[in-house]
């Protein structure tokens, strides 16, 4: 917390991606015909099932691997995954909820100041990379916590990491660096 400022930064988690396995083969056709709120994609070989609460979209493969996206928290992701497994169980498959793992967490955060990206990149080579012709944000990768931060000149940043804790750590780490290169908002 030494790097955080006086005001609390709002780190808003926008997306949590998790996977789990059902440990059994799934018949996609059965799921597509009898399940509710499903989209069958035979060309890819998967079924999308959308849950209303929590708001989750799950990609279901016939091997039994399921990827859940769209959750807003880790707990939500787990709850949604269990509900999904329960749904499949009801459809008649011998589902076992196993190997649940949160794979990716995406969060956004807004700095109260604008950032001078070129200075930021210069100060933080080679960890930071900035290619304005390709993407308007500078990419800052923290290797040891495996987090990637995209810094926009407006002061907004997006952080992706393997779990929520890593994401929070990444924000705290990068905040002082951003603070240094802030751009006064007046023009």
């Amino acid at each position, binding site marked *: 917390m030494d790097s955080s400022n006086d005001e609390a930064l709002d780190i808003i988690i926008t997306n949590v991606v998790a996977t789990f*396995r059902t*440990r*059994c*083969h*799934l*018949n*996609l*056709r*059965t799921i*597509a*015909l*009898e399940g*509710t*709120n499903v*989209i*069958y994609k*035979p060309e890819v*070989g998967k079924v999308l099932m*959308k*849950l*209303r*609460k929590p708001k989750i979209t799950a990609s279901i493969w*016939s*091997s*039994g691997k399921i990827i859940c996206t769209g959750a807003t928290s880790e707990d939500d992701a787990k*709850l949604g995954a*269990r*509900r999904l*497994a*329960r*749904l499949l*169980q*009801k*459809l*008649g*498959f*011998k*589902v*076992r*909820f*196993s*190997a*649940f793992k949160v794979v990716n967490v995406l969060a956004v955060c807004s700095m109260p100041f604008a950032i001078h990206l070129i200075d930021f990149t210069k100060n933080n080579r080679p960890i930071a990379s900035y290619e304005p012709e390709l993407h308007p944000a500078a990419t800052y990768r923290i290797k040891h916590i495996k987090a990637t931060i995209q810094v926009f000149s407006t002061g907004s940043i997006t952080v992706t990491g393997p779990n929520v804790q890593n994401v929070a750590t990444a924000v705290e780490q990068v905040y002082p660096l951003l603070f240094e290169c802030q751009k006064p908002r007046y023009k």
Partner: protein
Amino acid sequence: MIPNTSETLATFSLPAGLTYPVQIPAGVTLQTASGQLYKVNVPVVVTQAPAGQLPESKPTHKVTERREAAAPQSAVIPPNATHPQEAEPPSVPATAVTQPPHPKPTLPPGQESSLPQQPPVPAAEPSQPQGARSPEPEVTLEENEPSPRPEPVSLRMTASPCSQMLDFQICTEEALTHTAQLKNRDIDDILKEVIEEEREKAERARNQMPAKTDNQSEAVLGLDLDYNYSELSDIVQLDGPAGDSDIEEEEGVPLEENDFLGIINAEAIKALQEGDGSSDGNSISSTSDSEGADELANVEEEDPLNSGDDVIEQDIPDLFDTDNVIVCQYDKIHRSKNRWKFHLKDGVMCYGGRDYVFSKAVGEAEW
């Protein structure tokens, strides 16, 4: 020699006054006067039929796999597995029936007589390991067909390689009905001999597998069989269980995985339902949720799905009980996040108790 580039191969037509026998190198497409093409990957000896007849003009056919006509046996057909397109000269005599009458490359009869020497054939193709074997199968085969083939038998082969046996029989029939010099009995006898021999060889090969014995046909056959077996085992299964999956589900999946959504295989679904979970028969109906809960409780190493405890049943299956139904075909269904757009056609709609028919319908909805 007049080279004719009929297809991609150089073809030669032998002039009528040519003295036989003629040795033709490998990879030459021979065309009989009747118009049939024989492509051989092994050197060929062409001899004149004893009773030369005027060739009949026929549409050119490509003789593909006689060997198939000769059943699985490949004694005469060395590279069964390698070059399906080749018609080996030995196979021609083997099939006997396929003797073109005219002075054009009549492989079999001449080869028959000259079999023991087995002429130019040796090791025609480097790619074909059986090149050296090709003479031998001929030899063995020829031995079984001592009687000279009636020359004037003209071949009428259909181009389909798959129906070799059929061609075989068709040829025999045509041969029978053919001109006078045919000895029908001979043809039938020859055919029978060939078929029997092929069967024997197939059995032998199966029993003995690919041993490098003197009997080349066996080795060839074994090779073929090996090909088949190994091919079967090499088939990659892209779909399938993850170790613990149910066998019942396995069987159902490969059949139906790729079916169109619109094709409803009611029987298969029922079979699957029965197979998947005998206890789940009730759970299929969306109304009886609580009943299925108890039966469906699965204990699992990591995390027991306490069915019904921590997981809440999905709400509102009643949406499908509505009476408003549209049965139609679709032109395009589009979705962005939770916004759906429908372009439908040729449908019947029951809405508010009234029936409507439309040839085109457009709709939007939010999920």
